[in-house]
């Protein structure tokens, strides 16, 4: 199947056409084309199939040192494109000069390869996605449970080009299946999901089975007093906690003296200091087989593999956004990462969720968090609620289901209270508007066992 977005060649041709019309000495073009196909299931019934594409063409136009004018449009026919360019230049030509303008030097740019594109995911836009619906739902209905699900695929093309000769083009695919199963007596709900760049790596039967398992375990939850508890956080829960950890790496904020990576006593960033558990590292890599992404940012600068937190839990790098770096006369080194891999340092002994439960005398197992949002950026504090499976663990076994609990925690503190670490894999997010728009950038995490996790209230909904 052909990808339902503009191909790299089509993007280049379009860029040549638009930049060929432009006369302003600064003309920057950015094109994003996203196509999605998704199916929603509610109470076992396929309710909606939604497919289509959205195109966004941004044109930033500046004459000399005049103020920039920005326009966006989404029509590709030659007349519309010509009108847009002429319109932008007509206004931009009349704008006044900007004496404080900070123009960017043009530097040679090479982009690392990346592997975020998979033909199998493109193919799933047609038959495979629809066939998956039945495979996901039927096992749940066959045990008498209710099923709500989302099956989605996406493909994205991006181009950055300017009149100085910079050209970057990339494509990426993604897919996600999530499911909430409810027990026949509606007393328990279980969530499961998987996400992958490559549709073929999704284990569809496993999603249903896990949702059924969670829902069965979650029946008849009892109220349980919140407080500081030992927790076993499965990957979807860990992903929701750490997905927002990328932003504090932005050097602008940190050098300004704010955020969890700034030491207010020493009045400097905490570079070189241990900031999380020594067994963990945090990195991002466009060529990550599970978490790859386009190797350039919205301004056409390369995004290179970066180790943010190195072996020993040491803060190794901050992210110098393109213009901020230029203003300080240093080389740009990545934007703050939206795709993260929380990994184990070499030589670390890994555990499993089962082993964590077996080693837990008194604690709580959390399948997933939802409704997570930041409340204190200074310390990275988040609040959210357990969702789709929350259980009391006693004497090495899951004892009973408990009602969902709200937490107030900071991942920067949580990752200093690690008792055990599992193996890493990409986690699905499901509904997570607090993390951005769908599809969410890949987050690769291990399950974690944490002491003194701060639960503050209980919720009574199933």
């Amino acid at each position: 199947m052909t990808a339902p977005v503009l191909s790299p060649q089509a993007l280049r041709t379009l860029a040549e056409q638009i930049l060929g019309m432009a006369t302003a000495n600064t003309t920057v073009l950015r094109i994003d084309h996203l196509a999605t196909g998704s199916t929603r299931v509610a109470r076992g019934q396929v309710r909606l199939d939604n497919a289509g594409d959205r195109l966004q063409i941004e044109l930033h136009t500046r004459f000399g040192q005049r103020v920039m004018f920005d326009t966006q449009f989404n029509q590709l026919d030659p007349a519309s494109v010509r009108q847009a360019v002429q319109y932008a230049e007509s206004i931009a030509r009349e704008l006044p000069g900007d004496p404080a303008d900070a123009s960017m030097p043009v530097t040679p740019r090479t982009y690392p390869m990346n592997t975020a594109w998979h033909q199998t995911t493109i193919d799933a836009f047609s038959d495979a996605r629809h066939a998956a619906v039945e495979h996901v739902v039927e096992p749940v209905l066959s045990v008498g449970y209710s099923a709500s699900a989302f099956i989605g695929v996406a493909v994205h093309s991006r181009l950055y080009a300017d009149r100085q000769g910079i050209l970057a083009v990339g494509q990426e695919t993604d897919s996600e299946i999530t499911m909430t199963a409810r027990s026949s007596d509606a007393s328990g709900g279980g969530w499961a999901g998987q996400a992958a760049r490559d549709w073929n790596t999704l284990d569809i039967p496993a999603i249903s089975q896990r949702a059924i398992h969670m829902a069965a375990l979650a029946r008849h939850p009892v109220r349980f007093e919140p407080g500081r508890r030992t927790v076993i956080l499965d990957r979807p829960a860990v992903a929701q906690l750490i997905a927002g950890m990328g932003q504090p790496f932005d050097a602008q904020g940190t050098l300004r003296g704010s955020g969890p990576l700034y030491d207010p006593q020493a009045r400097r960033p905490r570079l070189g200091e241990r900031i999380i558990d020594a067994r963990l590292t945090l990195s991002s890599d466009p060529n990550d087989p599970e978490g790859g992404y386009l190797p350039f940012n919205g301004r056409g600068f390369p995004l290179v593999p970066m180790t943010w937190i190195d072996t020993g839990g040491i803060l190794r790098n901050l992210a110098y956004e393109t213009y901020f770096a230029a203003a300080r006369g240093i080389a740009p080194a990545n934007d703050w990462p939206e795709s993260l891999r929380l990994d184990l340092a070499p030589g670390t002994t890994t555990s499993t969720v089962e082993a964590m439960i077996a080693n837990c005398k008194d604690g709580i197992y959390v399948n997933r968090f939802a409704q997570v949002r930041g409340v204190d950026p200074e310390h990275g504090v988040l609040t959210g609620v357990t969702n789709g499976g929350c259980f009391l663990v006693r004497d090495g076994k899951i004892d009973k289901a408990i009602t969902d609990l709200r937490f107030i925690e900071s991942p920067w503190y949580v990752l200093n209270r690690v008792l055990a670490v599992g193996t890493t894999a990409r986690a699905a997010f499901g509904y997570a508007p607090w993390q951005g728009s769908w599809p969410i950038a890949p987050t690769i995490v291990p399950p974690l066992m944490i002491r003194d996790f701060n639960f503050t209230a209980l919720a009574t909904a199933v």
Partner: protein
Amino acid sequence: MMTSYSGGMTRRGFLRAGAAGMAALGIPWRVTHATPRYIPLTPATLRLSPNAFAPEMPQGEALRRLALAAMDAAKSAGAEFADVRVGVQRDIVVSPLPYPTQLTVDVSYGVRARVAGTWGFQHGSVMTADAIASAARGAVTAARRNAQTNQRLGTRTMSALAPTPVVTGEWRSPYQIDPFTVPLDDYLRVIGARVETTARVHRNHPISGSMLGWNAETRVFASTDGSLVTQEVMRGWPSMHGFASLPDHPTDDVHVDLAIPELLCGGFELVLRPNWIETVRVGMETAIRLRELPIRPFLDVGKFPMVFDGISFANLVGMTASPALDGDRLTGLETDASGTTFLTPPLDILGASTPQFSPLITARVDRSLPYANATQWDDEGVAPQPYTLIDRGHVVDYHTTRETAPLLAEWYAKHGRPLRAHGVAVSRTAASVPACTSGHLQVMPASGPASLDALAREIQHGFILRGANGEAEAGLTLATLSGTALEVRGGTIVARCDDVSTQIATKTVLKDKLLALGDERTSRTATVWEEKGMPWESIPQPVTAPAALCKDIDVVTWSIRS
């Protein structure tokens, strides 16, 4: 990283176009955080309006032809029912120079087709009759495939859609001055006046929102039933919203309470009101006075009486009680997305002799008010009519679309009311699936005098919460709300407290713990952005509510240093 474009201008988008957006566009940080500079406009620019050189936009007639082509194709393909939205949107954001003026044009459509109780939806932006007809056929094919899957799974399908009259016509939201014809210089004069007002009040940073933005949309709706309507809506972001803080302590701030909603229907006249500057000045002065109160670190968590200001209470109701009465949640459509509701099964809730909420709460919905969701016909072609949702604590209705209204058929029949959707379906853009919303919810204020100060005087030791917003868990039984917390002792504000938040158990706080509501003077309109669906889309929903006094609010702290 993948990004999707939602079209139109969201509040986030609007704010993003501020400091963060400017950084993204290459304006150095030091500039974005400095007081805006004013660069004199050239004589040519003085006369320049956003429309000065604007490309030709598709007109209503062209959009209607496309809509009808889609409906013809859907009927030919065998749809039991289909509808389509075709739209052209323009957004303008003007900021103080040197920040770029931004103009966005988005042209798109979305076709929805129904077969055996299930939907297929296709959206796109190629504005030709062939393309939209192809999308319509694709939607029918997808719906048919869904129906076959349902048959194989043996699942029960949704009832027939609620009936609605065929409608035709045109409507334009009222405005006096088309902001797209206003010279850029006039925008900058208004922005300058606001910023200077805040600067005159105090050396504080000006509050955010010193830019101005408008969204104009022409949207055509058509259905296979024969409806065909064209609506032109002009919405503006006239308000300044945000917080007052000192440059050295940007995170130590106080919410600025202005009695001007952030998103309104109207043209440039919205920012030319004679009392605008005075309103800003009073709001700033109050915020500055509160900003200068002593700060008390808050550690003694517990249960306290609390006064929620109008914005806080509107946000609380808008993110809990109102979505709990959302028809999409009732049908389970949001179970694997935004969540479920505790107000189910509906017929038990509607017929309950015991009220679900405090008898002080009466809530009505009226989409004719000139706010974000004002319309003549909703995105299903239904003409909205005002309805009461909660009557003195009793749930008497739900927010319903044509698909969800039949869930209440028995209730309506019992009370001699016709089965009809409420006209609250909203597609965020023409390319978005219509979703059930709350229209514009209004919580009725107390009829007797009850100012914010009067409510606070009832508190021996507790808090006033200003400008608070938050999040509710998926089942809507528990919410968290945080904003500017003012400590009250003996009825008097004595301090501001850091890191204070609340945990709201919806069912008890909006019932037994609600002691009093403020009067009309305390009413404020908040725009609650509800993210619905998978993939989710953010839909603005205005909620108007008075201040409220509650007892035993669970007050917690974000301070979790370990």
